[in-house]
């Protein structure tokens, strides 16, 4: 299950945010602290997560302390789904 979530988000980031459909993102690659995802795109990612997985990420949580890589984001989603 976590793997599906992970690959789903990976694809969204590669295609929609980075505009590099073939780009692979490893599970522990820093996303926010590295500047790969900027604040405007972060908002898009949060809305994507909300629409796709039915879980909310509050605006105060949109920073590297809440999640900074795919593994952390996937487990955040998992924990809120249950």
């Amino acid at each position, binding site marked *: 299950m976590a793997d599906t979530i992970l690959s789903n988000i990976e694809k969204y980031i590669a295609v929609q945010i980075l505009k590099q459909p073939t780009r692979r993102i490893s599970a522990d690659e820093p996303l926010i602290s*590295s*500047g*790969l995802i900027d*604040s*405007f*795109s972060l908002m898009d990612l949060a809305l994507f997560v909300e629409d796709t997985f039915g879980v909310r990420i509050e605006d*105060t949580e949109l920073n590297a302390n809440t999640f900074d890589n795919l593994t952390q984001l996937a487990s955040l989603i998992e924990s809120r789904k249950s």
Partner: protein
Amino acid sequence: MTIFPERLKALHARGSEQVALYLQFSGREDLTLTYDQLLCGASSYARDLERNGIQPGEVIVLILQHGEDLVYSFWGSILHGAIPSIMPFLTEKLSPERYRADLSALISVTKPSAIITYPEFEAEVRAALQEGDSVRSVIVTDRVASQANIEFSSLKGFQRKPEDIVLLQHSSGTTGLQKGVALSHQAVFNQLNSYGRSLSVTDNDVIVTWLPLYHDMGLIAGFLMPILSGVPLVLMSPFDWVRAPYKLLQAISKYRGTLTWLPNFAYNFCALKIRDRHIEGVDLSPLRAVINCSEPVRWESHMAFYERFKDYGLRFDALQTSYAMAENVFGVTQSQLGGVPVVEEIDREAFMVERIAKSPFDGHPSMKMMSSGQPLENVKVKVIDESGSEVPERVIGELALQSDCMLTGYFNRPDLTEKAFRDGWYLTGDYGYISNGEVFVSGRKKDMIIVGGRNIYPQDLESLTYEVPGVHAGRSVAFGMFDETQGTEDVVIIAEVNSENADEQQKIADAIRLHVTKNSAIALRYVKVVGPKWILKTSSGKTARSANREKFIRELQGDKVG
């Protein structure tokens, strides 16, 4: 003729309990500051500058985030007669090394005598200082003793003259830090008077904004104008707004906000990202004007914003436009409130090739242009060609202006000041045309990229790209590409490398993305690493940015078709 401290004193005398501003925070109650509290807080900083031996007329750099310290230290510098300049705070995105280098560059040109910052940031600031530089004091916010009352007579700022410089504005980026726009008390008041009249600003207005104070739109329209006009201000942090754009609308509803300013991208951003559940019960009907400024203005963005929020009381005639620049303090033009900005359809080919705005020929592709309004009463705008001669109406050329609110000069840079003017007219570097007194801005003369209201020099991004291993000097090109959905430009970087290996190229692309973002705080949308001979050069060997942009767009469209 007056000066800032006299105006503040007069507003204080009018009613010291009158609210000057409401500061909003994430996860904390709003903080209300009356003129009395504002001036007491500011006096504390003025006293501290005095204690540190800072002289009137010296520059103070403020390195602070949204909050009361930034507000107090800014006005405190002014009450002391010193010249405040707000430097953007270090963000998570930017590398501390680059920030330090930028700060050193700012210090070397601007020669401030003091820097005001937080205790946690003091070490970072000190690391940027050099033996023998101009900085004599680093003032730390928590060591500033608070004043319970104001002694106007002891404040040195009251001895300033209207023609003296009151503040400096820096635009962003490495190149921008070399140019501090110096403005006098008189220039700012001339602007506020004419701009205020064009908006019919009264005591009944309430200005709501999230705009950063290191940018002219935030500093002038969203900070100085309200506070110096006795109009209540509701101020939130740009970082909170970007994570929660609905907070702007909630604040407008809560405080009955009548005026707000947004760069074009923010119309799309709000329309696309705000969820219904965040704006339940929000009432936007008090809004007299939402003013689109600091990026090319787009009719499509206005429509998207209107469609999204019309059910919340937003009036169509509240959507307005303005053309502004720091060198003119702020506003150059303003659309007429109560009406809607003029929108016209022009022929795309005539615009591109003949450089004339004509009605579209039957069946030819057209484009929509939205006016930025008419020049303010104290500003003259003309359109000139390469030789400096004025061109007829509807012919596209460079916009030039004259006013009684121009900059005193680029601080400590008489060379740049001289270059900025031609026969007494300030050359804006923007292209556009005039029709029936309406000013239409069509683009930048230079290859400047404008993203989310920030001006970015492509050469800064290219220089950073050359620092990445595998990329050679002269073999990268950066440009902006308009993104319809976002309502602003996407940043594109293309770099040529010797390797034709796809994995190798991907690694270099990642390295470019990381390095450029960390050193410019600009997020890159497209990073393309290519083999030799991709980048088009002019016959003189210079990189032709627009030709490369067209080539890139063609390839991108080819990808989609194929």
